[in-house]
Structures are given as structure tokens and as C-alpha cells.
């Protein structure tokens, strides 16, 4: 992909080549917080590519969005955060995706080789590979611009391998900025996505903030006991405060399936930033709670503060009717607060 400018055609930047390769593999979701070293990827993804950019409100949240997306769609989201502290914040989400076998491609700028030898003095220096070695399924390092495409293929092959999981690709960040023709790049051999890994075929996906909520009596009251309870999905690592991110990822990965995430009031209040992101992604977001419960007023106020719809649940209502309401098209993502 070269680009025409006032001064003639110019070779693509490494970031443009990376996005081109990723799109050629059929991936379409970039989950990324801003940082100087990831800006070339943002710039490239905005130049007519099919990538959708989701900007979460923390790197950890972005990782859980990607985990949910991978499970729901069978395709990896691309997570690109800035080096150093950005990568540090991804840790628990990488571990969670590893446990749930969710395919995720963590595409991360890293310091060039000559700086990696003295990271203590380097601004935002962190040894990514060492830090992540316990939790990532695999890690690939690209220091050579000519190997960019093959490194992406290798990392994607790992993420969509057997079993699927999160794979990290560290790219020496100057490669993203520099223009270079694709010399001897590997011909594309498209790596096929997997079928949905979570709740395949379900008309409504039930997600739990953590696995202990599967015992909640609320599920029966709202018609989500039985089959939905058995098929309920949750992040690989119980992670209070990350369930809504996970559920948003499920919704983005399966846009035709409404998602209900069950959480606690504490869990909801920890995730109001995700609600803001969900609204900006035009996901129909609803907060729900039994209208007689102790948490109802606060949940209603939280809905008002974040622009979510408020759905008070009549405790005397028919579970079947309540479940139907969750499945209506206007309710893309419902946060059901147990309390």
C-alpha cells in the first residue's frame, strides 16, 4: 500500500503495512488507548481501512473487551497500547484471556534493541517480554521492518492455534513510523478465524462478572436460570470491576446477540467508564435491577450519570417477560445488578 501525496507516491509506514496485513487477515477491531508510539497505528487505521477503533478508559478494560470479543466472534481483536506503563496495565487481562482461551493479538510498540539493554534509564522502560512471560500464550518480537508481515502472521497463527489464546507481538516502535517498501514480505496465507467460542448459537448471551454469581437467585427471577445459567460465560480470571468490559467485547463480537452481564453494585460503580465507552460505540446500554432492591436507586442514578437507560424490574413480573425484554433489539447490553 503506497500512498499518493502532493509530492508523488510514498512508501507506506510500518504502521500502514501492519494495519494492511491485519485487515487482510479479516480482523476489524482495534482496541487502543492513546500513546505516542501507537499513534501511527491510529493514523493508518483511519486512512480508509476497515478497522474499527475502540478507545477504552484503561488498558486493563481494553484487554477484557478484547477477551470478550475473541470469545464471541472467534476472531482476535487487536489490542495496541503504549509501551511501558500501558503494557503494565494489560497484565491481568492477558492472564484472563489465557485462561479462557480467547484469541487476542496484543500488538505493542517496544523500545528498539539498543535501548532494551538499558531500560532503567529509558523513559517508560519496561521489559515487556519478561513481564508477560508467565501469562501470554506466546510472544513474538519484531526488530526488522522486513519481517513485519511474517511476524504478524506468526503471532496470529499462535492466537488462532490450538488452543486459541492471547499472543503478544512486540514491534520495535521506529518501524511503525518509518516508511519502507515491503521488500520480500511473506505472501499472505490467511489464517482462518474460529467459530464463536462462547455461547454459540445463543439468541442472548449471559455473562457473569465472576463465576460465583452463577449461584445468584436473581437469575431465576429474571428468566435466566436453567440453560442460560449453564451456558453463562465469564472472564478467565474472576475480575471484579472488569465484567462490563468483557460484556462489551461480547456484544461487539456478536452484534446481533443481546448480552446481559450480571454484576454487583460495587462492580457497576467500578465500571462507569466502560459505560461511557459503550455509549460512544452506540451499544444500546441499559442498567437494570429489581425495583424493590436496596441498590435500585443508586443503579438508576448511575444510569442517569452515564447516559444508560434505566430498567426497573418488577419482582412480581413474569420471568419469561423479563427475559424477553432483555432480548429486545434496543437492549444491546444490559447490566443486571444483583443486590
Amino acid at each position, binding site marked *: 500500500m503506497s500512498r499518493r501525496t502532493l509530492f508523488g507516491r510514498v512508501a507506506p509506514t510500518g504502521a500502514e503495512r501492519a494495519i494492511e496485513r491485519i485487515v487482510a487477515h479479516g480482523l476489524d477491531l482495534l482496541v487502543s488507548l*492513546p500513546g505516542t508510539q501507537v499513534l501511527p497505528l*491510529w493514523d493508518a487505521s483511519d486512512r480508509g481501512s476497515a478497522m474499527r477503533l475502540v478507545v477504552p*478508559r484503561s488498558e486493563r478494560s481494553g484487554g477484557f473487551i478484547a477477551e470478550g470479543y475473541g470469545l464471541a466472534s472467534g476472531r482476535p481483536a487487536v489490542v495496541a497500547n503504549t509501551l511501558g506503563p500501558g503494557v503494565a496495565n494489560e497484565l491481568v487481562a492477558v492472564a484472563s484471556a489465557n485462561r479462557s482461551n480467547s484469541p487476542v493479538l496484543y500488538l505493542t510498540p517496544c523500545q528498539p534493541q539498543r535501548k532494551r539493554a538499558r531500560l532503567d534509564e529509558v523513559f517508560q522502560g519496561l521489559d515487556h517480554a519478561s513481564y508477560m512471560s508467565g501469562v501470554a500464550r506466546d510472544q513474538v518480537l519484531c526488530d526488522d521492518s522486513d519481517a513485519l508481515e511474517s511476524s504478524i502472521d506468526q503471532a496470529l497463527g499462535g492466537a488462532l492455534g490450538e488452543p486459541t489464546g492471547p499472543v503478544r507481538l512486540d514491534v520495535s516502535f521506529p518501524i511503525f513510523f518509518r516508511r519502507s517498501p515491503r521488500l520480500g514480505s511473506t505472501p499472505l496465507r490467511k489464517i482462518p478465524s474460529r467459530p464463536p467460542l462462547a455461547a454459540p448459537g445463543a439468541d442472548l448471551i449471559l455473562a457473569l462478572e465472576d463465576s460465583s454469581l452463577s449461584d445468584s437467585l436473581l437469575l431465576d427471577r429474571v428468566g435466566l436460570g436453567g440453560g442460560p445459567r449453564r451456558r453463562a460465560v465469564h472472564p478467565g480470571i474472576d475480575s471484579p470491576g472488569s465484567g462490563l468490559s468483557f460484556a462489551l467485547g461480547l456484544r461487539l463480537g456478536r452484534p446481533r446477540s443481546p448480552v446481559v452481564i450480571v454484576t454487583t453494585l460495587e462492580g457497576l460503580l467500578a465500571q462507569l467508564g466502560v459505560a461511557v465507552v459503550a455509549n460512544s460505540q452506540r451499544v444500546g446500554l441499559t442498567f437494570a435491577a429489581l425495583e424493590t432492591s436496596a441498590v435500585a436507586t443508586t443503579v438508576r442514578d448511575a444510569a442517569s450519570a452515564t447516559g444508560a437507560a434505566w430498567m426497573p424490574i418488577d419482582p412480581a413480573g413474569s420471568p419469561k417477560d423479563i427475559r424477553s425484554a432483555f432480548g429486545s433489539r434496543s437492549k444491546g447490553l444490559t447490566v443486571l445488578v444483583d443486590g
Partner: protein
Amino acid sequence: MESGSASNQIVPVPCFAAGTAATECGAIEMRDAQAAAHAADGAARASGRAAVVAAAGLADSLRMAAGLVTARGDRQPVVAVAALGGPELELARPALETASRAVIDCRSSAIEPDGCLAALALGPPVVVIVSNLVGLATAVGRLREILPDWSPADRGGLEVDEEAILEALPALRESKRPVILVGHGAATAADLEAIATLARVWQAPVCLTFSATSMPAGTLEQFRSAFAVELPILPAGTVPWSTALARADRVLALGSGLSEADWFGLSDARLVRAPVTRVVLAPDPDGVAETTVPADAGDFAAALTNELERGGVLTRDGWIERFSEARSTWTELVDQEAERGAREDRLTPALAAREIVAAAPAGTVFVGEGGASGMWLASYAWLRPLVMPAQHASIGASIAMAAGIAEAEPTRPVWTVLGDGAFFYCARELSALAERGVPAVVFVFDDRSWNAIRLVQTLFFKRRTIGTDLPDVDFRNLAELHGCETLRVRTPGEMAMALSLAQESRTKPLVVDVRIEKGAIPFVGANLILAEVDGVLRTLAGSAALSSAVAAAKDRPALAANLRVIAGAVRK
């Protein structure tokens, strides 16, 4: 020799944890284990004393490791205890090792005090691994006994090389344009009087590193008293600071890591060309210093002072006065820029930051972050106690750090400034602050954007501001859900009223949503941006020129404000 540390008195060691770990070891409960690590980090930064964070299980240990990374960047004395066993330990161990400088495995033995203190002296943070919750409670109890004995001045058995000191002195004495760079290690552990005396005798301006700028509050007060007004101490990241480092013919770096953020080690923008003599107690390899001397910074300063008094001072006439004048000019320019907002009745970030700093009671500890809000705060909170991550310039930690500071320095007000982009990282900890009745004041600089990144897009990406606009969020409503008092201000007049309220005593946190203008460019921090793009600066040169032209056409007010200050300072 007296230590320059904040205090040697025995004080309780603050300990933070989330969930079960907090209950088991009687720690201050935070909502999240990463926030607990930030709280311990904040406590250590503000007090200069060691602090503890504890976590149990895989998920919380990983979160704790993520928080430790920021503490590691600035070598904060945090001891982290993780209760893990079997396969979970194997998953978490690499992250815990990378996020710390020493790991002590206490799964089958008790903590050995000397080993723990020596590990802290060699380089914090330190991780202690235990096998279960009982071990966690025992280890935290033991640390509460051991750590009050620790001070930043502890040498942990490190030997001083007297011969190396003597060998380093002649080259320094030859300098005609000397600059003393004081790093966090020297600011917290050395004899500040000795360093101040050296600066006077040598006629050398003193540059503080970013991490030294956030020295413990008590130490800062000693520092101000030792250096008095006639010595030019130059604020990190400002034009006079950069000018001094650029024009020096010799830099004496005391207790500094010679970080890229302090202009060292950059390949594309090598501002510091002078040879560097580095004095550190525990030298680690660096590719920058000409000479590294393993010695205490205060002892070395005293030795060099003796050498200068004996052999004569060769410093050029007017060298130090030039920086006294430059510092005054800088202060005036920055003040004038804030005043411009006041005259035009516009709530600019410069005006908001200046008024916040001016209104804060004496002794207030300010907490900042690595984004634009932190740069604004740093522009005005000069030589006031300021806690801010330097090496990692992290965002999202300040509310949790405020919780730690409130615990470690309970008599000091804590005023936090963070950006709207960072608010949600640790917003849930507002509930923890409210529950404990911590009267912290939190100012959210609400400019509806990731402003520091927009600045990079403005300077290098031809103002293509993709993804950096944030939706309009009413932070007042959100903070009320966490049990805080709240205010929203949009004008200088409303800001003044909010600051009056902030000065009043209260029993819960106050969150002020400060609606500031979008797109303003901070006056400090060019060194941080250049450190971020070091390696591609030449690649970006053409794009930067074009971007600047586009910005000059479209962002005139923001650029003009910045250029007024920068150009004014450069002229001096």
C-alpha cells in the same frame, strides 16, 4: 553527619491491600489491588518511608505487579507481599520479578530483617512471596516491625570508594560552567546542606530531576531551607533547566539515574553534551556518565567543596547569576500567562493550575499525573510538595496515591489534579476515600480530550486528532455516586468559589469538575515528548515542520501562548 531524610522517628508502616488480603492482615482496604500498590507508592513518595502492599491469589497479585511498575520506575521503597503457591506462582512470578528489583521467597522461612533491609537499600521495590493467607498476615506483621528502622539514608552495607572520590575531583574543579543535577536518591538520602554549600562555593546552578522534584514533603521543606533563595534551583522540564544542562561544560549528577526524561541518553536530541560525573551509592551500569563514583552524594559534595576551597574556583563570572535571572523570568512569564486568562475571564488550564496552587493550604501535598494536567500542575507547584510518577509518567494512579498519602502524612492536606482521560482508572477508589472519611480534594481537568496525545498529533501528525476527543462526561454526577462532595466550575469566578470551599475542613473527599479550555499546550515537558519519540525524530522532521505550519494556522491561540512563554525564556 545528619541525614536529610524526612524523619528517623519510629512511625507506623502503612499497609494497603484489596479484598481478603486486607482483612487478613489488617491493611487499609482499597477497592483494587493495583490501586493498593499505587497507594503504598504514594505513601512512600510523600513520606520518604517504606510502605507495604499485600495481595492474595493470582488475580490480585497480577494487579499488584501492575501497580508496582510505577513504583519501580522511580525506585520507591515499597515492599509487596504476595500470597501465592503452585502453578499460580509460576504464572505471576515473572511479572513480580520484572516489576521489582528483588524477590525474597519466604514460603518456607520467616522474613530475615537484614536481608529485607539490604534488598531495599540496593533497589526497591522488593517483593516477598509467601504461600498462603496465614503467611501473608505473618509477613506483613513482621514488616511492620522491621521497616520503621529503615530510612532512605541506609546504605545497606554498601561501601564508599574513597579513592574514586579523590580521582573524580580534579576534572570537576576544572569546570567553568558547572551544573549540579540532583536526583531523587540525593534529595532523599544525602546531606542537603553539603550540596547547598557546594552549589554556593562552586557557583553552580542546581537542576532537579523530575523524580527529585517529587521528593518527600518533609524533605522538600529541609531542601528549601538549605538552599535559601539566592541559589537558582531550576524547575525540571522548563527552558532555564534545559538551557543550564545544554550549556554546561560539566554536569555533576548526584543520586540520579540519568534518565532519558532528564535529557540524558537520547540519540536524536542530545541536549546534554558535557561530560557527566555521576555519584550514586549503588551504581548500576549506565551508558551516559563519563565517570561513576560509588559514594554518598553529601560526602562527595563536601569533598568537592574542600577541593574547591583549597585549589580555587574556576567558574566563569556571571554563570550562576544568569540562571537566577532566568528562573525569575520564567516564573513571571508563566504567571503572566495565567493572568491573561483571568483578565479575559477564561478558565484556562494555566489559570486553574495557578489558582489551585495558590489556594492550597501550607504543607499541602499535590498529586499529579503524567498527562497534560500534570504538566500544568508542575508549571505552578514549583518547590511545593508534589507527588508525580516521573520515569513512567503513568496516568490513572493519582486518586489511589492520594489515599496512601493521606495515611502516611495525615496532617497534610492532599490536593490531586488529574485529567478527564485518567479519571476512570482509579475512580472506584473515591468510594474507599469516602468510606474512610479522607478529606482529599480532587480536581478533574475536564477538557474533553486526551490532551497530551492531541499535542503529539498536533506536532507530528498534521493535527489529525483521531480518537483523542472524549465524550462530555459530568464528573460531578459520577463522583456523587462514590459518596463524594462535588462541584462543577466553568469560569474563573466559579473556580474561586470552589477553592474557598476546598480550603474548608470536611469529612469526605471533594471532587471538582474543572471545565477548562480544550487544546491548550503546557509550558513544560518538551523533554518528555522528545524522549518518547527518540529514535524517530529525524523520520518525523518533515512531518513535524508541516504539522507546525498547520498548527500555526489553526491553533494560533494555544501555540501563541506557549511560544510567548518559551520564547520569552529563551531570550533571557
